[in-house]
């Protein structure tokens, strides 16, 4: 398993290199001048030139490229072009916010999705099944920013349970929970929709297997059949989907972070894109790629936990 992990991480290196090169080229192909965004539209051509020199944008492109690639591996990710702060600091500052949001919504999604999916499968073609399927379809097709605003209107304006500006406060536990709750519910509901659908179809598959019939014939209690026999086997596709959709979750977290005004990678990347902050964008893309690689690896490793037959070589 250790060798498997090491090999998988090694495979990630060329992926990272390719992404870094692409990102480096892409952010520079897009028209727009970081110096102009920093100095504003009244800046003279001379002031812009000085700013470009200060940012190192006047140097040959290959020189900038080598410096960037070298920097990533030596831990020097450069400084944000707009704020002048080290890129790595900026990213590490907000990374915990995104991680906790992702985990919280994953937990909410699984808590709702897995039981609901199983329940739906057990009551196939009954009204509860139809209701679940319609509900999850609704969850899948709802844009994250719309549901976010609806949640704000309901819980912050009407009921006044949560502040509108959650701001990611974390001084006390209640402040932390208050700021995390709505964004996590927003993403969690979307996640729940995905998980419900996969769990349902996967459960239907395993409930139709011969060993289930055998277990029933032997008089095994229904509770044990469902949870120990059917569910364990149905979970593998669910884990795969959860792993895959973590990517989608990160994408949706961009919108969620903006609407709830929560710090995080998503908010950072949108700001960096608008301001053409090349260095920050590059750093963020490296992190995103790395996160996806790690999530995929963790998904593969989870298979072994669920199904002892899975061997890593």
């Amino acid at each position, binding site marked *: 398993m250790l060798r498997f992990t090491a090999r998988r991480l090694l495979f990630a290196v060329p992926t990272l290199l390719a992404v870094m090169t692409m990102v480096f080229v892409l952010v520079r192909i897009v028209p727009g001048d970081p110096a102009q965004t920093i100095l*504003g*539209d009244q800046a003279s051509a*001379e002031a812009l030139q000085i700013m470009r020199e200060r940012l190192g944008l006047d140097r040959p492109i290959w020189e900038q490229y080598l410096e960037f690639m070298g920097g990533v591996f030596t831990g020097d990710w450069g400084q944000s072009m707009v704020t002048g702060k080290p890129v790595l600091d900026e990213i590490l500052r907000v990374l915990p916010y995104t991680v906790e949001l992702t985990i919280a919504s994953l937990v909410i999604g699984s808590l709702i999705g897995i039981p609901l999916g199983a329940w739906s499968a057990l009551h196939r073609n009954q009204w509860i099944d139809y209701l679940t399927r319609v509900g999850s379809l609704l969850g899948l097709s709802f844009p994250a920013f719309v549901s976010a605003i609806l949640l704000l209107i309901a819980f*912050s*304006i009407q009921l*006044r349970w949560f*502040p509108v500006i959650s701001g990611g406060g974390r001084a006390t536990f209640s402040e932390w929970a*208050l700021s995390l709750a709505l964004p996590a519910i927003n993403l969690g509901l979307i996640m729940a929709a995905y998980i419900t659908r996969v769990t349902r179809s996967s459960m239907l598959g395993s409930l139709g297997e011969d060993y289930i019939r055998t277990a029933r014939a032997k008089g095994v209690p229904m509770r044990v059949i469902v949870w120990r026999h059917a569910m364990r086997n149905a979970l593998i596709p669910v884990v795969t989907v959860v792993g895959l959709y973590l990517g989608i979750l990160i994408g949706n977290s961009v919108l969620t972070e903006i609407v709830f*005004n929560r710090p995080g990678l998503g908010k950072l990347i949108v700001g960096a894109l608008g301001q053409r902050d090349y260095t920050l964008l590059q750093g963020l893309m490296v992190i995103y790629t790395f996160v996806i690689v790690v999530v995929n690896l963790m998904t593969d490793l989870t298979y072994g936990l669920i199904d002892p037959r899975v061997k890593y070589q």
Partner: protein
Amino acid sequence: MKLTRLTAGLALASGVALGALTAPQALAGPDTNILNVGIAAPDAGRLDPHLSATTIDKAVFGWMFNGLVRFKPGTASPETIEPDLAESWTASDDGLVWTFNLRKGVQCHHGYGELTAEDVVYSLNRAADKERSSFSSDFGVFASVEAPDTHTVKITLKNPVPSLLGLVTNYHGGNVVCKKAAEEMGADFQKRPIGTGPFMFGEYTPQQSLKLVANPDYFRGKPALAGINYQYIPSDSARDLAFQSGELDMVYGKQDQTWAERTKKMDGAVVHVMEPAEMSVMYLNMASAPLDDIRVRRAIAMATNRDQFMEFKGRDVTRVANSPVPQGYLGHADMSEVFPGYDLAGAKALLAEAGHPDGITLKVIHTALPGMLGTMEVFQAQMAEAGIKLDIEVVEHATFHAQIRKDLSQVVHYSAARFPVADTYLTQFYHSASTVNTPTGITNFAHCAVADAEIEAARVEQDPAKQKALWKTAQEKIAAELCGVPIYENLQIWATRDNVDLGYDLIGSLTLGPPVTETTQFRK
């Protein structure tokens, strides 16, 4: 794995989390005596008044810094300039030597000591240094800045300028920073900017907020507010909802009629519409055919229906533009008579006369910013009626800014507010030296060059009446040449809760945000 146990554990954990949600709401402004302000931006820029010129940061600088002189709070007209750090000033007859007498006992924030002439000299030199300032070109006319004694500042100019006082107001490079702090911190000054204003730097949380605290030693008296919490909220809906829920006491508004109307109807909300206006102009690139023909440009002007724009943008937040220089600027002259009125048949006839009976097609690059794009779409429809087809390529905002500066768009829709003296607008948009795609280029998209002589002469003219006359001639020439078609002027919009007493009448603010002064307070 025991799934049931796992599920139970998770359920328990979330139960604990939910239990915590009964915690009390964040305190609203009046309870804490802190003014909560929401701005439409993801984050601050560089928090150094000599570096950043963005709308987001300018308002804050206005609360933290002083100039030698200032615009009377709530106004944005150079005619209301009054003493700030300087108690009085004199100018030599030729307008080249200016002497300012400083107020005594002004304290720099956070114990950096009394402000003296040395600080002012340092600050103005810093603002003039292109390595440390974005406004260095404004100060190119300074020959020297000296401190004859601790409370006197002498500025000597190379040649007279249209508004020396304008350069030393609490705006852009005129903001005075404290020397000791700036030297001590160097490039880190933006992490803890030190000035002399009513509010001083408290704490900055990236992408979240900038907290300012009241300056107890402020020379006009201790502020009534305890502090300001300036919050960066890029999402329009989140900002509006936070204002509605009372979490924000003051909020940046959208320059949009529906926003103004909706917010006015909100309980306890006051909408402020203020100067300076941002003027929307369609600049016509006269270096490109067929716009090099004045008859074509005239046809475009005749096909423009300004009334329709007013209906579209809303009369509460916009007014018709009538000159190459926005209204309210020192030296503005109404050119309604010079610009051709709306006349669709005339426009078609003129196009035919210019050899385009079947109409023309113009290439336009435009930003995707919704507020601006809507205007361009109305313009496109109006032009189409006269047989002028606009081929619009919609690009992202930063791309737009880069491409229009490379001469790639035949019609450039630009919306801007500048320092309210005719010279700034005339120089940046209509002087040949500012032509885009040249080394000295700024924002002369039209390649306009008809009024260089008047613009330059007015810059050094000492007699205000003659100066105004020169500016008027410049505007006449530019309007007659049709370097651009001014459409409308969009005013700045903010909203406050009705328990906020700004302490002055808000007519305008050059920093584009309402000043928060020592008298601003919550009504009991």
